């Protein structure tokens, strides 16, 4: 066999991928946040959904989020290869081909939307389809390489899962999921800009116009503070609108103060090591803040639902 022919056939026909590489294409860590926020949207919605259908709805939303992650990695393979943080992803790492990632992402996109539509309703399915479209086409293909506002506008895709979860139960949208959407939407810029500040060289090499690379470090610090000042009061809106109770108020208040402290720390930090530390703290802390807000809503919902059952049990054993 000619060596050229053998190499050609090997390169085009033999896949190097493990199943884990395809799972990595789904961005499992992002998926976990999507699952959690969608679950909160789903349980808070008025009305009822069979638990099995609810679980399938969450599964479909998770797969939809994973599909958009795979399509994002397919389109961004060239810049992922340049950035240290992403250089070992399945496509730049040479384990999955671009074609495989594209087919995988497209199949899962269609599959997730169809399953959600069949299991719940087509409003939720349409919202999921829009979320995938927004993340892949509007953010990845349109905004990411063109504007410093990429993650501000693109953040809408990450903020939609609770709305999809709500729509899966009610077949519509209301003020409550819109507030949850607003919290995640406004949370996204300080979260990602904190990362962009410490990874600005990486983004610069890849030619992605993140705010620190274009507008400078000082302006980014200010923008993080401004967005934090907006997201903290918005985080308290569920209390105002009555679907967040005392626990939520305490968590949102304390978490909001922590967010403000971290944002101020970034704004004021002068020494490089302190500045980097402050950025990492905001990046990790903001995840904990969002997780705490949604956990508080979930705990309050669980207590409300479980207390009549517990009272009933008490009556049985009395």
């Amino acid at each position: 066999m000619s060596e050229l022919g053998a190499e050609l056939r090997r390169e085009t026909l033999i896949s190097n991928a493990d199943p884990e590489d395809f799972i990595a294409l789904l961005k499992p860590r992002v998926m976990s946040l999507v699952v959690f926020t969608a679950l909160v949207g789903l349980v808070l919605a008025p009305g009822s959904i069979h638990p099995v259908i609810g679980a399938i709805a969450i599964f479909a939303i998770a797969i939809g989020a994973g599909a958009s992650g795979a399509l994002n990695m397919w389109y961004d393979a060239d810049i992922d290869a340049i950035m240290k943080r992403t250089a070992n992803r399945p496509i730049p790492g040479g384990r999955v081909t671009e074609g495989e990632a594209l087919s995988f992402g497209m199949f899962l996109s269609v599959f997730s939307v169809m399953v959600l539509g069949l299991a719940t309703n087509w409003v939720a399915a349409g919202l999921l389809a829009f979320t995938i479209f927004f993340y892949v086409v509007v953010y990845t293909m349109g905004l990411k390489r063109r504007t410093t506002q990429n993650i501000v506008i693109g953040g809408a895709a990450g903020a939609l899962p609770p709305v999809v979860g709500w729509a899966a139960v009610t077949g519509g949208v209301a003020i409550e999921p819109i507030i949850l959407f607003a919290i995640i939407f406004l949370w996204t810029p300080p979260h990602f800009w904190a990362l962009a500040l410490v990874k600005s060289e990486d983004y610069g090499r890849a030619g992605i116009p993140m705010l620190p690379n274009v507008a400078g470090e000082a302006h980014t610090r200010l923008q993080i503070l401004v967005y934090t000042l907006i997201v903290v009061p918005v985080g308290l809106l569920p209390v105002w609108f009555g679907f967040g109770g005392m626990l939520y108020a305490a968590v949102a208040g304390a978490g909001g103060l922590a967010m403000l402290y971290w944002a101020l720390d970034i704004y004021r930090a002068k020494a490089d090591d302190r500045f980097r530390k402050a950025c990492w703290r905001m990046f990790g802390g903001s995840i904990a803040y969002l997780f705490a807000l949604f956990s508080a809503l979930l705990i309050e919902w669980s207590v409300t639902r479980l207390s009549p059952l517990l009272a009933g049990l008490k009556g049985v054993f009395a």
Partner: protein
Amino acid sequence: MSALPDDPKLASGPKLASDPKLASDPKLASDPKLASDPKLANDSNLDGVRLTDAEKARQSKRNRAIGYAIAGLCIVFYLITVFKMGPAIMKRPL
């Protein structure tokens, strides 16, 4: 380089059919005209790619994963059917 065997004009050319480099391409091998060519029929290059042990192991893992995924899909669609229809699943004309 990889675009060469995919080109239909080139693939149908008699000169290229006898080219050992191109003869090793599976797309050309599946062409009925080329398959009837005695030169190519005796060509051991058409045996296919031999996988290394590592490649075989990965392929096996992928196959298993696809199997599990299909089984999972069957369960998902079964559950959707049963729980969407509810008790009405038993009410059907005989």
